[in-house]
């Protein structure tokens, strides 16, 4: 098990809420290998969101180390973290988080925009990604013209476009009806088969059980780490 893509080493995160210090994560250690399909589960308040923010380089751990693709990102400055997010991570959110005034293809292009890719190249890649999630007919539509499932597929295309090391999904089916939810999960299965590294944060057991490995959190610590 050499060269893990994600390596958490005794990661702690504390928040100062007025006079009270809240320990959201109390020493979490785990590794994720390339191509793994993992779900992180647990009851609310267990530290899932904190874990997601740290994994997504949106926040820095209070102590411990986080290596992403072999590089320690736990003490990087804001600009460097932005670059890491743009180049190595893909995000899929519960509420899709598409920019409403941009078209489908423009939304997919956003991560490339901040990578300074040539315009034509980004446009081509965005088209390819849209086709991959089955939205080649909807390129010039605005997000509000699409169904929830379609919007989430746009978000997945956006998460794929920069060829990230890890795709992070936060309750990706939380806002969807069961049919579209199943479709999205099928899409994730396909991505896994294509060798993508996927991390799903969810409290929905049916979603979590599709992953090949489940990490359960409780009170800021790993309760169990099960492979199937």
């Amino acid at each position, binding site marked *: 098990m050499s060269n893990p893509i994600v390596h958490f080493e005794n990661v702690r995160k504390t928040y100062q809420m007025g006079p009270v210090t809240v320990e959201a994560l109390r020493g979490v250690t785990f590794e994720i290998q390339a191509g793994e399909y993992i779900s992180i589960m647990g009851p609310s308040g267990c530290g899932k969101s904190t874990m997601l*923010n740290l994994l*997504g380089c*949106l*926040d820095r751990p209070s102590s411990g180390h986080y290596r992403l693709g072999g590089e320690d990102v736990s003490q990087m400055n*804001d*600009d460097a973290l*932005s*670059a890491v*997010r*743009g*180049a190595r991570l893909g*995000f899929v*959110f519960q509420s899709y*988080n*598409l*920019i409403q*005034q941009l078209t489908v293809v423009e939304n997919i292009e*956003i*991560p490339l*925009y*901040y*990578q*300074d890719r*040539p*315009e034509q190249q980004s446009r081509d890649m965005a088209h390819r990604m849209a086709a991959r999630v089955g939205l080649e007919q909807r390129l010039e539509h605005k997000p509000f013209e699409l169904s929830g499932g379609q919007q989430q597929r746009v978000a997945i295309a*956006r998460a794929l476009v*920069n060829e990230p090391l890890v795709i992070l999904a936060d309750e990706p089916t939380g806002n969807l009806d069961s049919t579209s939810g199943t479709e999205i999960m099928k899409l994730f299965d396909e991505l896994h088969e294509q060798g993508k590294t996927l991390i799903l944060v969810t409290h929905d057991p049916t979603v979590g059980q599709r992953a090949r490995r489940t990490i359960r959190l409780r009170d800021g610590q790993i309760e169990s780490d099960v492979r199937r």
Partner: protein
Amino acid sequence: MTSASISVISGVTGTRLKRAVRLGFKSLWLHRLRSLLTMLGIVFGVCSVIAMLAIGEGASFEAQEKIKSLGSQNIILRSTKPPEEQKVTDKGSQSYVLEYGITYTDIKRIRATIPGVTVVMPARNIREYAWNISRRVDCEVIGTVPWYPAMRNQRVASGRFFTDADMDSCSSVCVLGAEMVPALFPIESPLGKHVRVGGNYYTVIGVMERSAALANNDTVIDANKSVAQHLFIPLETARLRYGDVLMRRRAGTFEAEKIQLHEITVKVDSLEAVTQVAEAIKTLMERNHKKTDYEIVVPLELLRRAEETKRIFNIVLGSIAAISLLVGGIGIMNIMLASVTERTREIGIRRALGARRRDIIVQFLVETVILSGAGGILGVLLGVVIPFIVSQAAGMKTIITFWSPFLAFTISGLVGVVFGIYPALRAAKMDPVEALRHE
């Protein structure tokens, strides 16, 4: 603040900036009405800067042209009727003839005592009718010397001005002011024709050019036509024909005045000496005239005063414009702050997808600069059109100096940067996690 923003811009590549500009246009276009209303403050600010400067510049240009036509190196002395109370004290002479004004002796005194004076130009002005058969013009007959045109910056349009020979021989020749030609000689050329003034005939030997200052506003000339109607004759001829006593008969009254000279113009050697010479002449005249039956006009001082007035005018207009630009800037900042709050979620998304703080700063700064820049362009257009309309409708002269649109446009751009920085910084300072959670 500015150095920070420069480093921000420098950290952003050209293509990224180009895209940011395109994105800025797009998101402003999305809220067309809001953008337009936000711009209006800047539009009116810029427009008022240019329009006010143009109108002010035009007004002062006219004033300065008029003063310049008097000659900036000249000092003009004019005979004026002394005030009533001084006339009463003079009643002891028991004379019906009112004697006042500048005398030939004054010229001699000025020539003899004041250094730095080159030429002294005397003139007599007499109100008379000039006739060409049955055509009549109420005009001012000016008896003067051959160097009058040179000193007054006027030129002869056709024919010639009279010479020393005409002076010495007291010949009956005259030069017409351009303004009276159409009334007296509507069809034929006046040169060589005769004009009757009083009981005497004068041969027309020349016509003056329309003076630049007067040519600009025909309406003014029409309003008080008589003022601009000049007929020049040699001074000696005037002296011979009219003597020193002028009689004026009006219904029921008879008035006689004894005036030797109506006006003298003193030309000073150098521009620097004008003020001192004017002082010296003033002292000299005060010593020799018991009554204040003269006035001293120093065109240079008028010019300076006009320039001072213009400066104050510009300061006042400038501050009004600055205030309106300030208000416009605050309007932009207000809208941008609202826009930042409204787009918190978008900021969070962009940050999560790789945007650095400076990318967010640039995105919002570009929007404000586009707003104020577009406002500036609209303002410049309006500011160029308004003076044009004013000069067409009100007959006022307006001058748009070439730098005023640039100045106004630059200021509006600066307003955009200055008032855009705070909202942009606020957008960039947001924590991406918080921003993503924002509803």
